[in-house]
């Protein structure tokens, strides 16, 4: 199976699109079908929490450009309901069955909903993941609410708060953890982010949870906090992180669960026994894969760049014989812009025990923070210092010693690393955008005897 056959891609967002393009670019001439739950052709999500909320760009105008023309059948607005790995068929919610020789799972994530369904239904309670979500939220912000509540201070929550302040809106941010962004960037940068938010007039409340969303006549009126505080608010944005779209794979026998679909370094999915499949591949936010730079821990990355890079590797491997397959080794990277700052990261900041400011200073708001784990460099984060980051990527790739050698022009003297203070994800409102799951199995297998069944184990 190199140039011929049937390929089905489930998930028609960034990873699905780039995989489809790569398949065609690399000469796949068989039938290609993309299935997408959303009715829209692939679009770019990062602008949704930035340009779109600021009213600079309309939510429906964020379509992704195609890299090359893709001859494919697009099934949009239809959910995949299951997969039969024996008969090699994807079962769609509309009843259609799509036969495949190779399957790519790129179903991504969705916004974690507010856990109280009645409160979640209140008019004014929103999430932000899709462009329809963004259109609704932008409209609400444009209407000039008296106060916006953002629940969760991860990247999305912080970017929303930033947009609100730029629009001149009062905003309260509630975060269970000790500071914003702490789950992704650790204590030093979390503290910096907290000061930043307060300096921009955000009513930031850390160490609290929202205990109730209050409403009247079906409309949100305010919220109560675990510390007894309460606020009035017309809009609440639930920014509690993401849920991986894997439920449709229940019963498929694949290693799919809340932390994603496990695969090998070549993007081939594992089945629930840890045996690698050779016809099912995974890419993007839904994938969980081992990375050699991070002790082969299984990483789940909710990163734009990972979706692109992993999709390209998966597509290549889907149509390549074994010896020509490639590993997905890209160093993780992401960016955020908020409160006028450009925050960029390479490596995995949560894979660290120490951090040091290697260039610039927190006080100026221009710096590079370098993270280390057991004496080697594992990540770097720049704030308004993007041109230096390439240097640190090289240090990560070469497992250079931590702390890095001193001598930077804008950071004379020796380094004084401090603990990186990466909290357990359980302590946060916002989910981590990188999940290290290698040493934290999330499910236990129970072996049951069941003759010739493809699913001889059950999960609990």
């Amino acid at each position: 199976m190199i140039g011929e056959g049937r390929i089905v891609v489930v998930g028609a967002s960034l990873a699905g699109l780039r995989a489809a393009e790569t398949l065609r670019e690399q000469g796949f001439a068989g039938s290609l079908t993309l299935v997408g739950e959303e009715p829209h052709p692939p679009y770019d999500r990062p602008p949704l929490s930035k340009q779109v909320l600021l009213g600079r760009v309309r939510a429906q105008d964020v379509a992704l450009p195609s890299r090359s023309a893709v001859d494919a059948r697009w099934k949009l607005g239809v959910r995949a309901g299951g997969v039969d790995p024996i008969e090699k068929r994807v079962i769609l919610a509309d009843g259609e069955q799509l036969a495949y020789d190779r399957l790519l799972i790129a179903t991504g994530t969705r916004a974690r909903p507010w856990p109280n369904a009645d409160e979640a239904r209140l008019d004014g309670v929103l999430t932000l993941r899709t462009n329809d979500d963004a259109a609704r939220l932008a409209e609400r912000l444009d209407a000039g609410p008296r106060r916006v509540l953002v629940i969760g201070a991860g990247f999305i929550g912080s970017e929303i708060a930033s947009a609100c302040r730029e629009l001149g809106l009062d905003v309260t941010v509630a975060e269970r953890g000790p500071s914003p962004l702490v789950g992704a960037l650790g204590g030093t940068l979390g503290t910096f982010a907290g000061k930043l938010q307060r300096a921009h007039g955000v009513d930031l409340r850390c160490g609290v949870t929202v205990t109730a969303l209050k409403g009247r006549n079906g409309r949100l009126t305010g919220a109560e906090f675990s510390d007894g505080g309460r606020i009035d608010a017309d809009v609440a944005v639930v920014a509690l992180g993401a849920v991986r779209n894997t439920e449709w794979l229940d019963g498929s026998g694949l290693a799919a669960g809340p932390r994603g679909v496990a695969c090998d370094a070549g993007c081939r999915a594992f089945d629930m026994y840890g045996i690698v499949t050779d016809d099912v591949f995974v890419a993007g936010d839904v994938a969980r894969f081992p990375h050699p730079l991070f002790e082969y821990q299984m990483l789940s990355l909710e990163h734009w760049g990972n979706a692109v890079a992993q999709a390209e590797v998966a597509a290549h491997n889907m149509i390549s014989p074994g010896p020509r397959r490639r590993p997905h080794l890209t160093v993780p990277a992401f960016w955020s812009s908020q409160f006028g700052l450009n925050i960029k990261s390479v490596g995995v900041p949560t894979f660290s025990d120490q951090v040091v400011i290697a260039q610039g200073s927190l006080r100026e708001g221009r710096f590079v923070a370098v993270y280390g784990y057991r004496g080697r460099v594992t990540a770097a984060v720049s704030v308004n210092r993007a041109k230096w980051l390439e240097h640190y990527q090289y240090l990560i790739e070469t497992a250079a010693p931590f702390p890095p050698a001193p001598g930077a022009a804008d950071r004379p003297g020796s380094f004084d690393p401090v603990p990186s203070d990466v909290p357990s994800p359980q302590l946060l409102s916002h989910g981590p955008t990188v999940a290290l799951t290698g040493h934290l199995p999330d499910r236990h297998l129970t072996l049951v005897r069941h003759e010739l069944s493809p699913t001889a184990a059950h999960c609990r």
Partner: protein
Amino acid sequence: MPPDTLFERITDYANRPDPYPLYAELRESGVVRQDNGSYLVGTYHEIAALLHDPRISSDLRNRKEPDPDAALARSDELPPSFIGVDDPEHDRLRRLAMRPFGPPHSPGRIDALHGDITRIAEELIHSFHDKDRIDLVDDFAYPLPVTVICRLLGVPQEDVPRVRAWTNAIIAGFDPTPGEDPEQRRRSAQEARMAMAHYLGGLAEERRGHPTGDMLSALANDEGPEGRLTHRELMATGVLLLIAGHETTVNLITNGMLTLLRHPDILEQLRAAPELLPRAVEELLRYEPPVHFLPQRSPLTDIDVAGITVPKGAPLILVLASGNRDPLRFRDPDRFDPMREDNQHFGFGSGIHNCFGAPLARIEAQIALDALLRHLVDPRLVEDPPPYRRSPVLRGPRHLLIERAAGA
């Protein structure tokens, strides 16, 4: 005695028309230590890494052996400009200079110059429309950028001849000509730099409180959250912007036309499809860059470059034009291919010291070449190679004689 070290051969005027075989030799040898203790780097990936390495200084005061030019600079009453200092000072000075020039504060300023630059180019071409033979440098490639930068800064047109005289003396200052007294050369350069600085400082001073819409007025008046440049900083910045704002663009336009005349098929292709010019200009920046090397870097600590330790304070010379021809980075690097993909050249450097004026140079070159292609029918090189300017750093023809079909 013939020059022996590689760097001496590179800087030898006899090799100015074609230094590229020497660059190939440099890449073969890896990092090359010269007898004088300086180190040459000519491979793309090593240059890229060094341009993004925070331990590499652009400040000559960090040299172990005092550089004669740096010694001179110290005796100067001017502070170094932002190309000669490191972060955070570099960052502060550059950001202040950027305020009236580009984003985030003045995003549309250069874009708005399109019409003016086009008009100036057309006027220059019209001025030689009845000549069968032109010197592209004197008749076009020099007057165009110098007029543009003077207008942008707010230097009156009638003072352009003075600007040119100062600039020539300053450029000659870091231009080793065998047989001349280097002290004399440096002193003249120094005097010219001070004269230009005082002249620009005077213009800015006149406009303090009376802004006239140009960059000098803005630098003298606009106050950001970090204040503004001191008077001496403004003088140093003004000199830098004025000189760098045209010297290199002359070479870009001239090298560009020379390259196109050597590739007549591509010249015709671009004439027929001018929308290809932006990409062609990027390829010119790779293939015949206006700045061949960065001579003033040095490490702040011992560093490893491709297995060689370059000691703290040693002169580190990054040969950008060699990196641009590195076959490990560019396929078929010695071929001029205006359709080249993934062209991440060093024509404007890279990292924090990337060319401040790049956006201006880029549109000047696009507009200049477009106008020349439209108006010069059947152009022909009179001599190839043309006579070159002395400088091995700012490398380009001193004259470029072009003949064209009579009556066209």
